[in-house]
């Protein structure tokens, strides 16, 4: 359990059936499969031999600081940037040879809002429909549906330039859905939005996934977002996937749960003897991984499987005649997970170590209002 040596969890390893599927099988198959996917910008290994699968129907997240390689991965999978080496299949199509087929079945919503401010919400969606070569009747029907879905029906005729940030992002996401994609890529969907709008957007994304059955691949540098929204999360740092699992299992792997107990109350001041006795009683239990004294005179007991450990712990302390005054349990955050796998805190890195624009290829020139990151 050394924090400095990143481990790659089991799921990350390339699957043995690495040969390219020619047809896309239905059912819960892998909608994205990458094999040693790599992108270099000069000497910078933006994405470094990455292997992962996205399952059909899930919300899959890439969690990492700016410059970790999140956007570059998305840009490769959406055919915007060519991989330097390695390969991938997206919705069953080969990235290197079937780019146009891929474009027909995926939706892409970039980090920067790509709506035309000088066109209305309706017109933005209509044009997008034409770009996918849909028929006029289909476009009309889809635009109506989507405006409904993202609650913009009332503002359909207004120019997008007059929309609020949250409205424009919703419109942007709707344009990515015009052609009923099987897979939607959302690059940092809530960056730059206020907390209220962000929470709203999570609701829309969940609904899309559950009601419309769209598989979602998103990137984020918000731990909370990955935790609350994603079925599975890949932790990416310096172009490499450090861990990949459900948020809960990732957190389990850190150090289990923390049970905080205390023996004192306003009436009963802290008694160091009790604390020592409790420590002795709990030491050696198979589910206890570590015991630390808390600042409040109690103990922080690190356990695996907090739900089952808690009653056992109470029983043992009762047997030793050590009545517990208060008890609480907390789960480790993804922050702890990130620290464990990368050896550093995520926010330490945020905003630093950005590649120069010239290295970024698709990031044509200086982009305005862009928080950076790839």
């Amino acid at each position, binding site marked *: 359990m050394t924090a400095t040596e990143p481990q790659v969890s089991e799921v990350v390893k390339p699957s043995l059936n690495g040969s390219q599927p020619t047809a896309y099988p239905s059912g819960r198959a892998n909608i994205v499969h990458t094999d040693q996917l790599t992108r270099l910008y000069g000497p910078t290994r933006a994405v470094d031999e990455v292997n992962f699968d996205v399952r059909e129907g899930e919300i899959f997240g890439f969690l990492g600081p700016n410059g970790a390689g999140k956007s570059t991965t998305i840009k490769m999978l959406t*055919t915007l*940037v060519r991989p330097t080496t390695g390969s991938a299949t997206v919705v069953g199509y080969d990235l290197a040879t079937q780019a146009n087929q891929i474009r027909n079945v995926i939706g*892409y919503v970039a980090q920067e809002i790509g709506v035309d401010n000088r*066109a209305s919400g309706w017109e933005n969606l209509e044009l997008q429909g034409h*770009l996918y070569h849909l028929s006029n009747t289909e476009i009309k029907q889809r635009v109506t549906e989507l405006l409904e879905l993202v609650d913009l029906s009332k503002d359909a005729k207004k120019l997008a330039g007059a929309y609020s940030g949250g409205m424009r992002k919703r419109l942007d996401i709707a344009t990515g859905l015009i052609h009923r994609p099987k897979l939607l890529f959302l690059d940092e969907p809530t960056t730059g939005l206020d907390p209220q709008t962000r929470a709203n957007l999570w609701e829309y994304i969940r609904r899309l996934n559950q009601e419309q059955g769209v598989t979602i691949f998103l990137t984020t540098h918000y731990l909370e977002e990955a935790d609350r929204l994603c079925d599975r999360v890949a932790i990416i740092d310096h172009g490499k996937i450090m861990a990949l699992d459900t948020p809960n299992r990732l957190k389990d792997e850190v150090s289990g749960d923390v049970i905080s107990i205390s023996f004192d109350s306003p009436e009963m001041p802290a008694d160091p003897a009790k604390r020592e006795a409790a420590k002795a009683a709990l030491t050696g239990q198979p589910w206890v991984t570590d015991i630390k004294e808390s600042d409040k005179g109690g103990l922080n007991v690190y356990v695996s499987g907090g739900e089952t450990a808690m009653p056992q712990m109470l029983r043992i302390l009762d047997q030793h005649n050590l009545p517990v005054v208060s008890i609480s349990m907390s789960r480790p955050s993804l922050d702890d997970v990130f620290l464990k796998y990368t050896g550093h805190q995520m926010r330490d890195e945020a905003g630093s170590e950005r590649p120069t624009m010239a290295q970024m*290829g698709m990031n044509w020139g200086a982009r305005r209002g862009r928080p950076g990151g790839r």
Partner: protein
Amino acid sequence: MNTLADIYYLTKRNLIASVRIPIMLVFTIVQPLLWLILFSQLFKNMVSGMANAPGGSPYGTGNFLDFFVPAIIMQTVLFSGAWSGNSIISDMESGVLDKMMATPVSRVAIILSRMFASVIYSMLQVTIIFIVAFIMGFQSASGISAILITYLIAFLFGLGICGLSTLLAVWTKRTEAVMAASTFVTMPMFMLSGSFLPLALVGGWVANVAKFNPLNYALDATRGPILHDSIDWGTFTVSVVILVSIAAVFVTASTYIFRTRLATS
């Protein structure tokens, strides 16, 4: 077929977007009119004063407007076209281009529609200039054919300039570069031409340099039918061939650069 449809829808989108910038609409309409009025007032007496010169007026007319309208039209098309490359840069910067690239839309259509929209927008300016000029007393000796020829020539000339501007835009990806280069190209082009004065009056090295100036070919092809009651098809053909060639070179080059350097990386 899809490519043609893509060009149509994207050109439409770009045109509508241009019209929706109110301040730009004001400038695009007011600026050529300002030039039309100021320049014609400035040179009015020069043209009418030479009307009875021995051996005929070098201007070919006593009516200043007849001489200046083609110049104002080509100047407007030139200046508008020179700026047009910036539109694709703004698409790059705003993320609109990335978003388009993730769709199956034809890559060629993205860049061609930008140039077409810009040239069609200039044609709107040409129309406004014609309308105001007619009100001010402009006359076309060959009637409607001269007007149609002017549109054709202005379109071809504009397409070449848009192609050049777009080429610079996709090459440098910087607005500043397009702006600097457009001034560097348009001003000498405008000065070293028969826009204000017939080249016969200018003479010397300027007249020689002007032979390589596409703006002069555009002026030659349009002024002839406006000033004379007959169309010189020889001059017309030479101008069309030269302007089509220039447009073909720059439009193809910018499309090629866009596809190879920007459309995939």
